[in-house]
């Protein structure tokens, strides 16, 4: 009974290793994804994202390690795995000379959707992916955005518990990215989605959790906020202030001992200058800062903002960290 209360996680990867002819592409990767989560898989080119995803689908065998999808081992039960996943590979390959509805119908048959339900399900998916207008068009003649949506429609067609998409938004314009993002977000809670991407804001908006991978290793994992804290290790504020800056430091350390000025801008015509402050504390200090500085007659405060480092900063810092880690032993 207790097994039914806690179903196995959607994706469970332990010590996954994959090497091509002795060259490691993925080395010792472990992570777990709970059901209903949307996970972003980030990494520079050649980091091992696609390889990991292909291993998850059972398309490529791993060199060593364990991969379980919904408690089913990929290595020994590839047939069962194929019923659990919807997969959209990199570059979204589609047959050029089929119509959209024909293709989805064929796929539905292969994915063992019962014939009675297939037509209803097709209508649903076409609606979900906004493909009704192009259902009778030849896939080879569709624009990239539509092709991408056909790929996503194909992946979600059989309502599998796990959906794996390799760069679903690559090459799309901002408007199309928005549509695809909404589409992925609409799957939240119903299906587990693993997407890889280079486009960081994209991942940040859509995903519950991010896994950053570089050189075949996991560099960081967590929610975007956790990652900011973990990788960058500080919170930053930005002040626009006029007054005796020299006296400010003492005041700041009264508020929070670790709060220091890291950067000062030029004074503008009104006597204001921009200051960057950082602190190791996780507590929100904005209100306190505002209260202290406005009550103090020596300072005139014009602006206060908490700086939000983008995922881009985190990503760059995290990948830089691995390169340092990898490079150091090779030099010694």
């Amino acid at each position, binding site marked *: 009974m207790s097994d039914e209360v806690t179903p196995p996680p959607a994706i469970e990867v332990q010590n996954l290793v994959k090497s091509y002819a002795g060259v490691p592409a993925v080395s010792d990767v472990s992570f777990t994804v709970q059901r209903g989560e949307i996970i972003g898989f980030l990494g520079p080119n050649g980091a091992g994202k696609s390889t990991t995803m*292909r291993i998850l*689908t*059972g*398309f*490529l*065998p791993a060199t060593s390690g364990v991969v379980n999808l919904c408690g089913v081992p990929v290595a020994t039960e590839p*047939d069962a795995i*194929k*019923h659990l*996943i919807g*997969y*959209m*590979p990199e*570059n979204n*390959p*589609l*047959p*050029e*000379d*089929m119509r959209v509805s024909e293709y989805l119908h*064929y*796929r539905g*048959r*292969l*994915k*063992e959707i019962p014939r009675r339900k297939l037509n209803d399900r097709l209508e649903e998916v076409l609606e979900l992916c906004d493909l009704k207008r192009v259902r009778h068009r030849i896939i080879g003649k569709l624009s990239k955005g539509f092709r991408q949506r056909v790929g996503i429609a*194909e992946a979600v067609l059989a309502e599998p518990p796990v959906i794996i998409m390799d760069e679903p938004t690559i090459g799309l314009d901002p408007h199309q990215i928005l549509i695809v993002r909404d589409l992925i977000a609409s799957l939240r809670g119903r299906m587990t989605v693993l997407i890889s991407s280079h486009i960081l804001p994209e991942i940040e908006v859509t995903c519950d959790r991010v896994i950053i991978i570089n050189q075949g290793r996991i560099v960081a994992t967590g929610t975007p906020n956790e990652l900011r804290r973990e990788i960058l290790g500080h919170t930053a504020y930005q002040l626009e202030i006029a007054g005796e800056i020299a006296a400010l430091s003492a005041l700041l350390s009264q508020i929070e001992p670790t709060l220091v000025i890291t950067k000062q801008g030029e004074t503008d015509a009104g006597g204001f200058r921009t200051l960057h402050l950082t602190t190791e504390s996780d507590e929100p200090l904005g209100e306190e800062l505002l209260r202290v500085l406005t009550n103090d007659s020596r300072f005139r405060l014009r602006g206060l903002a908490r700086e939000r480092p983008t995922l881009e900063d985190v990503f760059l810092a995290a990948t830089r960290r691995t390169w340092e880690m990898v490079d150091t032993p090779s030099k010694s």
Partner: protein
Amino acid sequence: MGNGRHAFKILTIFNLARVFSFITHVKHFFTILSHEIRMLLVSPSTYIAAVLFLSVMGFFFTSMLDYYSTAAQETTPAVFFFQYFCVPVLFMVPLLTMKSIAEERRLGTLETLLTTPVSTVEVVLGKFFAAYFLYMALWACTGGLFYILYRFDARFIDIGPLVGGYIFIAISGLMFVAIGIFASSLSRNQAVAGIISFTLLFGLIVGLSVLANVTLLQNEVMKPVKTAVGYAQVFHHLADFSHGVVDTRQVLFYVSGTVLALIFSIFTVEVKLLHS
């Protein structure tokens, strides 16, 4: 007693599961088969191949009629006509099969196909039978030529060699198409696959008949090789079939060749996945 019944129950459930999985496999096979036939029927290259095939065969047929009209012949038209089978085989089979696996691999659709609940076996068999279906459909069209001849003068039609010739085409076609599929699984480039398939078929049909007359094989030491080559004479098989002799050894030769070529295609597809 109870134990035995229990064991029986387990056995039934086990068998039911196997039967069920077999049925889903067969279903997938037919889904892929009908899809492949449909794709072949909407592809222009199929019609180009069909037109070329029928014009070549029509040309042979008219020149044969010409020949018969000048002097009485010992053999019936059917025997004469089927002797030219290798010309269309060498060009048609590569044209029909070169696209099948090579194109899917080049586009990357093989990856999406194999991540649905289908196995490589179903994919390869589906493609094979689709190509075979089309190959036979084209040969069936040549029946029209004989129908014209029959309406013209029924004396020319000798039913034995005619049926024997078509049986030969049907059985040898299995192996030729399987070789084409195998060639297509070797490369991601259609043209390369086509040339490989042409070369293999040429070696099998023409090469072996040339090899049988090589003086080296007349040597006593080479006798086993000579016997083996002697069994694999496609033209001899045709002659036997045309005379109404259906030799099971020859049927076995084509069937086992087909199975072997298909097994090699399946292995090639899987091995290429492992090393992709």
